[in-house]
């Protein structure tokens, strides 16, 4: 009887360990989302620089990605997650409110732009307002890339 209890406990612990190993950490989750935002920004950036023809559908898709990820990302920077394999700086912890306000701004501007960007002219006027949030955050809260 006791052996069966021990074996069952080990099985439960083994399964739990396997599940925990599968669940991505906040660090890897946020890295995935941020890389997706960077990838989404690529073609609109080429359009702004006249290196690719303007395509409204691609711009709208990028804006949706920005707005969507801006809602999820603030929760992926818990205390203690600023050491090791991450470019996020500890100052996020001490300036939490300002840090989160940038995501709020990105969400708001990207959502508004989905309505206000209807053609190339409005794209050139309004897209930089959305995209400027990327640099605003990186300037203060991201370690210089090496």
């Amino acid at each position, binding site marked *: 009887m006791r052996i069966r209890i021990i074996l069952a406990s080990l099985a439960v612990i083994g399964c739990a360990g396997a599940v925990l190993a599968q669940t991505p950490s906040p660090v890897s989750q946020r890295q995935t989302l941020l890389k997706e935002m960077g990838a989404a920004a690529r073609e609109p950036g080429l359009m702004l620089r006249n290196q690719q023809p303007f395509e409204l559908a691609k711009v709208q898709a990028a804006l949706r990605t920005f707005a969507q990820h801006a809602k999820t990302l603030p929760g992926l920077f818990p205390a203690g997650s600023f050491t090791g394999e991450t470019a996020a700086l500890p100052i996020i912890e001490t300036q939490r409110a300002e840090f989160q306000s940038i995501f709020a701004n990105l969400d708001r501007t990207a959502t508004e732009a989905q309505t206000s960007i209807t053609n190339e002219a409005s794209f050139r006027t309004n897209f930089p307002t959305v*995209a400027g949030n*990327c*640099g605003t955050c990186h300037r203060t809260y991201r370690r210089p890339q090496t």
Partner: protein
Amino acid sequence: MPTRLFKWSFALLVVLAFISADSGDILYFWHKLIGYALLTLILWRVMWGFAGSTTARFSTFVTWPWRVVGYAVDLARGRKPRYLGHNPLGAWMVVAILAIILFQAVTGLLLFDDKFAEGPLYAHAPAPVQRFSLAWHNRLSAAMITLGVVHVAANVLYTFVRKEPLIQAMVTGRKPAAAYADAVETRGGSLGLAAALLAISAAIVWGGVYLAAGMGAFR
């Protein structure tokens, strides 16, 4: 005169480079153009440093580091050696500023900021060079501010406290006759040569980035 035109244009462009970097332009359009202009001027200055006026030539003022120490010791002891051209400390400031802005210009050519701004040579560079360029272009901008502050402070100090008219000399090209440690007579540089060297520098830089990235270099 070419040296003085260079110096003041260079200083203005460095200030504009800082302003354009912080202006919120996600494409860094003006910052890139200013970078190309600074690179052009640096190339010109290096060539001019071998073929220009006496006081502009590197052979006249660039000295071994121990001479800089000797000069600093002289200053500390209250001796006032005077130089017609750049004094040893000033000489190394010239070298330091040229080196750091050259480094900034080159890393700028090679970086992509992971968002919207890409240098014209980025696509041709291997990944470690791309990452190095981005990291150090951002880091060294702070060092340039420090150098700039020291440079301005030193020249203000020399001109108004030590009564050595350095700022006036850099504007007018003249210093009062005195017992200078470095030269008695100087020759001005050839204006025609200066113009030709500038054309060559411009062709190398602006032609080069166009060859590397087409019109994308200018957007």
